[in-house]
């Protein structure tokens, strides 16, 4: 019986299937004939437009012929359960989509040129199951297909089903995003937020099956009412389960998971930020991890550490969502607030600090605040850049010219003077952020644009002295991206790489700030600032690298990479020749980073308990956190 339904559904969708194959054939031809621009354009169209649309079309046509030919009566009078009918039809139609995906996979796999283009276009779906991730371009069509298929039994007009599917799907995703933000603002550390899309899609499935199995299809109003009722119930359940899932028991217990957000090595210790614990310090010579900011449980995601001081933000409380800027010594002593936005008599009352930085000597601080001001009927966000001494004197400020829906952040306070480097970037919902880098002088009250069309720089953008800034720019006219190093002292720029799509992974400055190591796709490169020399490092051909770091003296280089199928630490000498490898005896979950301390290395996963130290000489492992 299933085979017959399978054949029927395939016959009904043969046109869309043929069209998908036709498009993929066109992509192959374009790729083989070397029409790169056209291939990129068409690939984008295929991924962004055709796949979701095909999924919506197949899904929305799920019960089209039943509506059109009144074949409900025929199917319902056959000896088959309605749930089975729904599932058979769903699986049959899903198989069409899956076959398109599989063909697409092989087309990609056998045409490396095309594979590269798709890799560049690809986005990972927010991991719902830890390690397991899926391409957004697979997940989104699957969700679109399932929702529109579930709704298709309610109405015979496909365009209405497609419209309603997009409308409800988008509304639910946005509602969830705002809800997640709300949870986050309440102080919850959230994991796997994408899970809701699975649950809400399942809500449509269950509501649709139950409606088919239980309702009177001769009464359209009743049918829609019943579907809406079921959907609402399942959505409420989905919200509840998703909330429990993403917070992992934090609602019911004060001891949730830990999350390490930011870390920095300073004078042989690792300073890191845990969302719930605050700023912590690890020194291999001491047994225990020290908690440095004892005043508050909730901290901002990063801190600024320079010249023996730490500048950080603390959240007042879960209920009072205000940030106060604090300073303390690197041993945790002398902690005091610098900027209190919750105090009514403070100049900074209701001004939200969004970015901050310490001066090279740590005697001054700079920070950016935002607040809303009424302009006519509208409320407009105002960004202000401030600078002051750590004793609260010498306050200077300047309102930054930040376009609406843009954000401003401080990225550097170079060692030579008082200029501040500010990044103006598009809002949080833009994937490919195009930003501007400005140099602001508060004494002269001037602002100079240093770079335009900057793609948001990765975290390794600054040299230790903060005098060199690395970023990627996109030249739309020439359709190319370049990796640039900017010397903030003389504003000289050096282009390191240029390509259509520049896929850069990780990067790490040597502790003396002289060399920058970074990975570009599967290659490791080192740039020497003094010699202005870019060199590709010949190491064994790893499939991919996971993390790397310089030793404190800059004489060695530690690489975490798969060797013979397992992750190992590879130690390279100053000429980047392999010196030795250290096996990693434990399994890590999530992304792993490497931080080198005096005589050892810290391996840091993203999950609680996955924070290990290894002595590079003795190869002894110690669980740290």
């Amino acid at each position, binding site marked *: *019986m299933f*085979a*017959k*339904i399978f054949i*029927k559904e395939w*016959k*009904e969708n043969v046109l869309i299937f043929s069209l998908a194959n036709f498009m993929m054939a066109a992509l192959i031809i374009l790729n083989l004939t070397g029409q790169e621009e056209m291939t990129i354009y068409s690939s984008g169209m295929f991924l962004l437009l055709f796949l979701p649309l095909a999924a919506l079309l197949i899904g929305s046509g799920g019960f089209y*012929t039943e509506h*059109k*030919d*009144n*074949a*409900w*009566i*025929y199917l*319902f*009078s*056959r*000896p*088959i*359960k*309605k*749930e089975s009918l729904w599932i058979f039809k769903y699986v049959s139609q899903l198989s069409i989509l899956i076959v398109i995906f599989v063909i697409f996979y092989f087309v990609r796999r056998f045409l490396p040129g095309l594979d590269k283009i798709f890799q560049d276009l690809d986005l990972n779906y927010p991991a719902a199951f830890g390690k397991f991730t899926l391409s957004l371009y697979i997940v989104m069509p699957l969700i679109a297909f399932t929702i529109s298929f579930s709704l298709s039994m309610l109405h015979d007009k496909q365009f209405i089903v497609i419209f309603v599917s997009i409308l409800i799907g988008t509304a639910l995703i946005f509602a969830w995003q705002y809800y997640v933000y709300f949870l986050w603002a309440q102080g919850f550390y959230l994991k796997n937020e994408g899970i809701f899309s699975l649950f809400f899609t399942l809500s449509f499935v269950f509501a649709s099956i139950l409606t088919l*199995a*239980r*309702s*009177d*299809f*001769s*009464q359209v109003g009743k049918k829609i009412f019943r579907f809406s009722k079921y959907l609402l119930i399942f959505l409420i359940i989905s919200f509840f389960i998703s909330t429990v899932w993403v917070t992992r028991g934090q609602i019911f217990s004060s001891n949730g998971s830990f999350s390490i957000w930011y870390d920095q090595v300073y004078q042989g210790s690792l300073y890191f930020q845990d969302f719930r614990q605050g700023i912590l310090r690890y020194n291999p010579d001491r047994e225990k991890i020290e908690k440095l900011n004892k005043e508050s449980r909730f901290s901002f995601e990063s801190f600024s550490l320079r010249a023996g001081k730490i500048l950080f933000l603390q959240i007042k409380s879960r209920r009072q969502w205000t940030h106060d800027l604090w300073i303390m010594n690197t041993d945790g002593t002398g902690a005091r607030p610098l900027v209190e936005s919750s105090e009514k008599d403070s100049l900074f009352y209701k001004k939200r600090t969004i970015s901050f930085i310490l001066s090279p000597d740590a005697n001054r601080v700079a920070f950016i605040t935002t607040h809303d001001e009424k302009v006519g009927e509208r409320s407009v966000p105002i960004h202000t850049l401030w600078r002051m001494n750590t004793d609260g004197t010498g306050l200077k400020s300047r309102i930054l010219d930040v376009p609406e829906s843009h954000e401003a952040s401080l990225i550097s306070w170079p060692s030579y003077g008082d200029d501040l480097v500010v990044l103006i970037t598009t809002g949080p919902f833009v994937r490919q952020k195009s930003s501007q880098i400005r140099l602001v002088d508060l004494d002269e009250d001037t602002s100079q644009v240093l770079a335009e069309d900057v793609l948001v720089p990765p975290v390794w953008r600054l040299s230790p002295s903060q005098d060199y800034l690395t970023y990627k720019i996109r030249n739309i006219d020439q359709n190319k991206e370049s990796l640039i190093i900017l010397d903030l002292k003389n504003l000289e720029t050096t282009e390191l790489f240029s390509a259509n799509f520049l896929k850069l992974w990780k990067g790490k400055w040597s502790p003396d700030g002289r060399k920058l190591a970074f990975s570009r796709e599967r290659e490791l490169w080192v740039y020497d600032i003094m010699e202005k020399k870019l060199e590709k490092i010949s190491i064994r051909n790893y499939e991919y690298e996971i993390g790397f770091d310089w030793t404190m003296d800059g004489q060695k280089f530690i690489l975490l990479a798969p060797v013979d199928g397992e992750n190992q630490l590879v130690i390279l000498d100053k000429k980047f020749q392999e010196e030795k490898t250290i096996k990693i005896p434990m399994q890590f979950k999530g992304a792993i980073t490497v931080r080198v301390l005096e005589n050892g290395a810290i391996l840091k996963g993203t999950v609680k308990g996955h924070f290990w130290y290894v002595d590079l000489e003795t190869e002894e492992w110690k669980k740290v956190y």
Partner: protein
Amino acid sequence: MSDILRAKNLYKSFGRKHVLNDFSMSLEEGKVYGLLGKNGEGKTTLIRMIMGIIPCDKGKIHYKESEIKFNHPLYKKEVGYIAEESIFFGWMTIRDLMAFNSSFYSKWNENRAKDLLDRFDLEGRLKIKTLSRGMKLKLGLIVALAAEPELLILDDPTSGMDVPTRHDFLKGIISEILEQGTSILFSSHMVHELEGIIDHLGILHDGKLILEDNFEKVKNNAKKVHLVFDGSVPDGIDIEGMLTKQTDGNKCDLGIYPWSEDVKKGLEALHPTKMDTESMTLEEIFIHFVS
């Protein structure tokens, strides 16, 4: 003989309209049940409820010994259904439909399907959407019969058929089906067609069965009476079982059910100069009951 189908106290409403209101019926195995009713009285609704296409608001339906629950489809393997309208996928060819439909039925008889296709001059390559209404009904009949059902439910099947086909269907096919012992629930608005076919009669009116009995018994008990009086027709004729009364001068026509000796005596007591009685046709029975 046991009942193959029983409906008890069925209720069904569409909005504020009560279509079935405490409806009950039963069909004996191997018999033909003729269900009559005006358009919109709920015949199709009842059949769709029996076939599990729509749920009933209240009441129970039994097939053989088991209660039919909505969305419990196993009994449908033994039930053939011919709808009053086309219910097939238009894009399919007749051959596609036969193959698709065969997968639902374990007793599917391929030879019977072929024989019936030949008999009705239907070619397998034809697309269903190109068929006329009559051809689609023939196809429905083939689909239902090739499954070799124990119960056949016909929802006004002959309305779109041409005369020779209808004749073949009523005289030939139905007889063949009955020879195989198949029970039939036959709903039709072409009342005269059921005459000579049905064993049992049910008349549906205002959501209820206003008559349900053995057809022969109904025929014997349903009488038309023509009365002629000397003077005018006496006022207030009130005879037990009087369904209809029509007066024209000194003449009076009555429809009586059930006919009995007491009724006869009651009429004679009115002293008509002439009294003729004759049996009603099925159509007349129907008209008398629903008017």
